[in-house]
């Protein structure tokens, strides 16, 4: 199989226009004859379902939550980028494009990123019109702030709850379509298999998590907006129920998985406090605008922060990266924090933490300004740690936050299975090897509101689909597959809980496939994960039955998939013998300890094609060409 990226011809600023013009349209009267399944109701899925409904398609929308509004996009704090140049500080579509390609360490498709930057402008307009209460200046215009990896202020925000407000905008648009009857919403449904008929994605198998009933739904196309897979690591900033099951089962049906090893470790999270810890909490990157990151100069300095004089502090980001300072991209900030902690200069219990200090800003701007900017974040920190960040510096440490990898998609967001579209974090597209802050919301909404609704129309207009329903042999096979898997899991009745497996997997992944990776470590982890997988299917203990609300069973399926995905991530990390963005192989670093790319051999996206259980998947390659932004050693000095 060859990966067809279907990048349109023409100069980069014309590609999306050309593409849209070349696409076939579906007559308004015909749209209602098509049905589209959308799985996931986050920024991407929610926006897509609402927009497809507005256009007149019959949309069948699925969420594993009790309400579409709970999708984890809601937790995004900092903001959303857009090349509006409202601040008159030199921003432009081209600059946003440039920053994103560079921030992604030259491992993203230029055409996609340019389109994203173009669309970013319309997203803000759309959200404002929906009633998203973005922060405003006294004159009534929209307010902006700066964010990591950029030297302009282009981030729009709604206090520390930007994701929430954008998601509620999409959710409300979705509810409007539900009320109008164009979207049929199925809540508490988990997608457990993809139905492929004659090589084309036609439906899904879902489990009603309220009753256990397995259901088959057939449509003309399937859209996955099911988010990222950061929970492979057990501890991450993802929500507890965020999972990879939908994309993983699609992978097993033939959708190639792009760059699985590209994970983002976010530098500013609250450090782990004990082994009962269930998740990690992010402190928005926007805090780095006014907070200064430091550790003691001396190893093992046990003095309280305020007892350490200025001269004995190491503001290591400001020291090493004078031009970007505390605002270096996330991968750089995270790696540096790990480095100083590995040197034994970390702070807090366990020594895995660095200070994020607001004392200077409070002196300069006053506590009330700081409160207005970050009040809710400070409060959250206080609630979790019991410490008051107005008087003592925050302690932060990196944590898994986002996965740039995901199902491989072409320019039109279609996976390697025709009719299966993947949007938002679930796909691998726009961020390359590292995502810039405030770009995830941008991508999710761009895909959902403005890209997918066009490209799916072209697919439907150009494809002649055979009639199919639930009784189709492929549908019955998929349903049987899910039934067997469920039965198998419930029949094991072993000794270990699902969570204990998940925790163990997370430990291997964080240790060997986290911020720094080595050939040896990855091989070791793959061995361990294979053992874990074997034990899982012999010794996991899932109580209860399928025909009820069974949260252990829900988790069990997800963890089984995480174990397999974890192995693929290690495999991908092992094969990518270079360092780039969030993927740091210790063998490939510059003398200063920065990531060293190998453009000659690895200027490509890797996509893995499933070959059957127990078989090594095939590594496909999509070469990346950089016509506009020429690959260089990223420098934030």
């Amino acid at each position, binding site marked *: 199989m060859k990966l067809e990226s279907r990048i349109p011809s023409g100069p980069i600023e014309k590609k999306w226009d050309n593409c849209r013009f070349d696409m076939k349209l579906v007559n308004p009267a015909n749209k209602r004859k098509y049905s589209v399944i959308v799985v996931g109701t986050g920024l991407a899925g929610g926006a897509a379902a*609402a*927009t497809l409904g507005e256009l007149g398609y019959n949309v069948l929308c699925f969420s594993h939550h*009790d*309400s579409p*509004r*709970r999708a*984890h996009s809601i*937790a995004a704090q900092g903001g959303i980028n857009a090349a*509006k140049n*409202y601040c008159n500080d030199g921003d432009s579509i081209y600059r946003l494009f440039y920053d994103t390609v560079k921030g992604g360490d030259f491992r993203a498709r230029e055409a996609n990123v340019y389109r994203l930057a173009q669309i970013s402008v*319309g997203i*803000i*307009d*759309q*959200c*404002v*019109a*929906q*009633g998203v*209460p*973005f*922060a*405003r200046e*006294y*004159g*009534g*215009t*929209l307010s902006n702030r700066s964010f990591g990896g950029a030297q302009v202020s282009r981030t729009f925000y*709604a*206090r520390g709850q930007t994701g*929430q*407000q954008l998601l*509620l905008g999409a959710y*409300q*648009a979705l*509810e*409007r379509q*539900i009320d109008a009857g164009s979207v049929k*919403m199925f*809540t508490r449904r988990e997608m457990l298999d993809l139905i492929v008929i004659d090589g084309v994605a036609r439906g899904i198998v879902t489990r009603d998590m309220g009753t256990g009933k397995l259901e088959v739904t057939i449509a003309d196309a399937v859209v996955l907006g099911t988010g990222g897979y950061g929970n492979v690591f057990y501890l991450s900033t993802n*929500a*507890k*129920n965020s999972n990879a099951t939908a994309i993983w089962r699609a992978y097993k049906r033939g959708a190639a998985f792009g760059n699985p090893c590209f994970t983002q470790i976010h530098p500013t999270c609250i450090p782990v406090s*004990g082994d*009962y810890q*269930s998740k990690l*909490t*992010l402190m928005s990157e926007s805090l780095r605008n006014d907070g200064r990151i430091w550790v003691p100069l001396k190893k093992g300095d046990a003095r309280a922060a305020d007892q350490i004089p200025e001269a004995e502090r190491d503001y290591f980001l400001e020291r090493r990266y004078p031009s970007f300072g505390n605002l270096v991209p996330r991968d750089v900030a995270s790696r540096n924090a790990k480095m100083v902690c590995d040197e034994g200069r970390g702070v807090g219990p366990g020594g895995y933490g660095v200070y994020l200090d607001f004392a200077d800003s409070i002196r300069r701007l006053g506590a009330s300004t700081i409160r207005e900017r970050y009040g809710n974040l400070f409060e*959250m920190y206080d*609630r979790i740690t*019991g410490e008051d960040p107005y008087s003592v510096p925050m302690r932060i440490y990196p944590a898994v936050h986002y996965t740039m990898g995901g199902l491989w998609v072409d320019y039109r967001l279609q996976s390697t299975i025709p009719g299966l579209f993947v949007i938002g974090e679930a796909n691998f597209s726009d961020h390359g090897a590292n995502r810039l802050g405030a770009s995830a919301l941008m991508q999710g909404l761009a895909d959902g*509101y*403005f890209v997918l609704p066009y490209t799916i129309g072209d697919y439907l207009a150009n494809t002649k689909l055979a009639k199919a329903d639930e009784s189709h042999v492929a549908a019955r096979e998929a349903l049987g597959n899910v039934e067997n898997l469920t039965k198998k899991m419930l029949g094991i009745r072993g000794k270990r*809980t699902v969570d204990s497996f998940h925790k163990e997997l997370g430990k291997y992944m964080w240790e060997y496939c986290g911020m720094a990776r080595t050939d040896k470590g990855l091989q070791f982890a793959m061995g361990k994960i294979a053992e874990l997988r074997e034990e899982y299917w012999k010794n996991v*203990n899932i*109580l209860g039955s399928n025909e*009820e*609300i069974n*949260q*252990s069973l829900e988790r069990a399926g997800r963890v089984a998939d995480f174990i397999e995905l974890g192995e693929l991530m290690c495999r991908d990390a092992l094969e990518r013998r270079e360092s780039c963005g969030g993927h740091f192989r210790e063998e490939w670093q510059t003398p200063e300890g920065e990531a060293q790319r190998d453009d000659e051999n690895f200027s490509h996206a890797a996509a893995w094609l499933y070959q059957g259980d127990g078989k090594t998947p095939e590594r496909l390659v999509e070469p990346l060409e950089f016509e506009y932004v020429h690959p260089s050693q990223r420098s934030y000095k």
Partner: protein
Amino acid sequence: MKITLHVWRQKDRNAQGKLVRYECPNVSEHMSFLEMLDVLNEDLTTKGEDPVAFEHDCREGICGSCGIVINGVAHGPMPGTTVCQLHMRHFKDGDELYLEPWRAKAFPVMKDLIVDRGAFDRIIAAGGYISVPAGSAPDGNAIPVPKEDSDRAMDAAQCIGCGACVAACPNASASLFTSAKISHLGLLPQGQPERYERALNMVQQMTIEEFGACGNIGECEAVCPKRISIENIARMHRDYMNGAFSARPNAEAGSAG
């Protein structure tokens, strides 16, 4: 520390529920409340007993999934805090806690501490939106919005839809939830065209869902994790009355075409 729990256990929608006593002998003060339940569930599973079902997701206090009435207070004793953000350092050794689900006719219990809050979605679907199809928006700065209006809209828009207001209200009223959305959209210029119809339709849906009436008691704002004010409820009443009395007889025609 040691905590004793009395947890509402109910097998499914139709089963009779009851409070069951559990001991949590090794609770760390750094744990969150839900982490304590995680540990309890791991123990129960190991012992072969059905773990306690409770809803949760982001554990950052923003998704609105979690919600438990702890000793008669929705989301427990810390003001402005969801259960997932509540930490055990606020309890003391030997505490005895009663954990119950949100109780309202409109929120039927599905299992243990999980309730069905679909009624909230239907209230939003009835009018909690601004009708603006993708692609039709003017420039974001085309309509200036006074900062104060925008800030107040944001205060209301912070609602996480957890349902604590309903749980805490002696009348199981959904007024705070409904009014927060009516205020959020009604305070912005973009929300004006549908302002009164929105209030009418959302209040009507709230009535159909069989929530109780607001008695201006104020328990809702006291337990609201986002501290949404009952000033919004007055605003809802105002917009509702305006919609009910000032609409012209032919308003039914709507916007066909």
